[in-house]
């Protein structure tokens, strides 16, 4: 077992006339035993990165190291890794037992009896012992998922690579498997790289999260860090659900003015010294609907969630969302005053998107669980 280091990884797809840069200059190191989630919108290069690590794609430039060993030119089977695919990729003509044992049978010199033992052990671990003689098409989605995991685990690889492994499951099962996967990974202590487009999944599962966009790595860090201290507007927008409220504002001696008559005066405007325009971000849970709020928005829709309400409002031509207590149920069309503390304000450079100020409050758990 070992960590994984990517250095200046670049992948270019060359299809005759045009070439597409899928991954650009990506450097990232994953600790031994760490659970890293690669997240980003579709087409951001996260799957390509994973496939490069797996050895399923040739790397255009840069290098991949497992521990001390450079494996850039190794074939997939020589890398001692296992991968779980989105559609599980179970061999349809083999039984569960054969599916799990296939890799050992092909590429190890273990005697058959020992392969059987290992398959049995893995099946026991995953609770699929009674399915060992079934064919994949007789299994439910969750069971197939377990078999796919079993196939990875039995190889005792130095790393697991998972490409959206839960996206084919229904919501309830997905949540269950999420926990189970985390426990399994923690018990086995194997370095795991997990790709998903779902930021909730990323937040819930990752030790650290790497956010990618347009082939470029934006930020790596623990979930909490990404949420509170995004390096740029993209990360701030991508992480968190419902997503952060963003609006354009002009700056005049520490006072921000934006659409719909929005104004907000900063006590400390040091971070935007010299800026005339700025992008302002406020997370939905930091907005409170109070009678003496300094700004007012028009309510569009209120979505009751049971434990809380999402209140969608219009501020000029911008839609903003507030996450409020279930007792707050303004009617559509109401003009409601709202407020938010300065510690919760994010400020971004309007041209580069770079973060100028992020959350400065201390009470972290209060902020998230609203």
């Amino acid at each position, binding site marked *: 077992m070992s960590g994984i280091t990517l250095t200046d990884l670049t992948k270019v797809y060359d299809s005759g006339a045009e070439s597409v840069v899928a991954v650009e200059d990506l450097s990232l190191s994953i600790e031994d035993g760490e659970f890293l989630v690669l997240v980003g919108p579709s087409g951001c290069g996260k799957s390509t990165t994973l496939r490069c690590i797996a050895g399923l794609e040739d790397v255009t430039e840069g290098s991949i190291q497992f521990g001390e060993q450079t494996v850039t030119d190794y074939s997939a089977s020589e890398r001692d890794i296992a991968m779980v695919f989105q559609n599980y990729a179970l061999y349809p003509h083999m039984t569960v037992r054969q599916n799990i044992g296939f890799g050992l*049978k*092909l590429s190890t010199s273990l*005697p058959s*009896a*020992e392969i059987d033992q290992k398959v049995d*052990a893995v099946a026991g671990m995953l609770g699929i012992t009674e399915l060992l003689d079934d064919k994949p098409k007789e299994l439910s989605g969750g069971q197939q998922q377990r078999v796919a995991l079993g196939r990875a685990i*039995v190889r005792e690889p*130095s790393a697991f690579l998972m490409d959206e492994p839960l996206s084919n499951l229904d919501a309830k099962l997905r949540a269950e498997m999420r926990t189970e996967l985390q426990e399994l990974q923690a018990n*086995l202590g194997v370095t795991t790289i997990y790709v998903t487009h779902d930021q909730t999944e990323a937040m819930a599962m990752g030790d650290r999260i790497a956010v990618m966009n347009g082939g470029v790595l934006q930020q790596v860090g623990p979930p909490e860090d990404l949420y509170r201290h995004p390096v740029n507007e993209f990360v701030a927008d991508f992480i968190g659900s419902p997503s952060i409220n963003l609006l354009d504002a002009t700056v005049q001696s520490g006072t921000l003015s934006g659409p719909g008559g929005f104004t907000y005066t900063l006590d400390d405007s040091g971070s935007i010294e010299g800026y005339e325009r700025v992008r302002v971000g406020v997370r939905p849970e930091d907005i409170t609907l109070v009678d003496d709020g300094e700004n007012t928005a028009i309510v569009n829709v209120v979505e009751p969630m049971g434990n809380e309400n999402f209140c969608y409002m219009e501020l000029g031509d911008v839609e903003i969302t507030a996450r409020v207590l279930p007792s707050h149920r303004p009617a559509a069309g109401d003009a409601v005053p709202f407020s938010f503390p300065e510690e919760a304000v994010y400020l971004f450079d309007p041209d580069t998107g770079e973060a100028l100020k992020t959350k400065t409050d201390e009470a972290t758990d209060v902020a998230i669980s609203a």
Partner: protein
Amino acid sequence: MSTWLPNDDRPGADSDAGSLRSRAWDRFRFARQTYSRVVPEVGPVAYLFIAPFFILFTLFLAFPIAYTLYLSFFRYEGVSGDRWFWVDLGPIFVEVPQIAELQFVGFGNYVRILGDGLFWQSMFNTTYILAIQVPIMIGLALALAIALNASFLRFKGFFRTAIAIPVSANIVAYSTVFLLLFNEQFGLVNYALATIGAEPIAWLRSEFWARKTIIAAVTWRWTGYNMIILLAGLQNIPQQLYEAAEIDGASRIEKFRYVTLPQLKPVLLFVVVLSTIGTFKLFAEPYVITGGGPTNATITIVQYIYREAFQSWNLGYASALTVIFVAIVSVISVIQIRIGGDN
């Protein structure tokens, strides 16, 4: 490696790890692992995959096609002993013999076709058979497919099997059976006619009836085949369309006219093209049943090519006939696909 799973690496574990058979199997497995490392990586392996096919394709399909075209400009004068070309590299000597002794005649063969009465006769016969046989067969096949698709019909499986069973009949064998079925003296068909009081028919001695015999035989053999294809087409028509038509008050005939036919059109067209080409290539049936007679009334194009090539040994001329034949077949399929429009 080696972490969380049981590892049987204690000394002597192997001996009790598996039976004799499984150990022998393992040895075979390891040997295979070693050999399979020789296989090349992703890129070039594709060429290895297509090589056997491609070599045979070039040798026995591409080359002969070109050679037929070539041959059609020559007169065949027997087998040749000459070399066509050779490669002499000292120890390695490769010689490819001339395929045949040929006399160049330019477009002579093609000019001869224009004035060849028997060729035109065979064209006429084939077209005649085709013009009657294909519509009858497709009509029957469609009617049967619709009947078998009807929700009220029971024993569907039995009927479908029985009607489709001729698809498994060997062409020459079934032709032989038809030869006897239509025998003038003791054939079952004439017996059936006699029981309803009709005169026996000299099926194979009259030009008119000989062609009908061929048509009957071909229809028997291929109706079930077309029915299967049409039935699959019918089953692909969404049921909601019929339900919608029913709500709109469509009668049975209107449903056929406005739902079934337009929905089935591509399949129907496809079946027509397939059958037309199939009938155009008719050979075994007339060869066995009528021998092309009486007075060449049922000789087909392929049969005529066969006669010219392998009875008269005019291989050059027969090649020219073949080229014309292939051209016609290709044109038919292209035209019919065009008429069908859509795709």
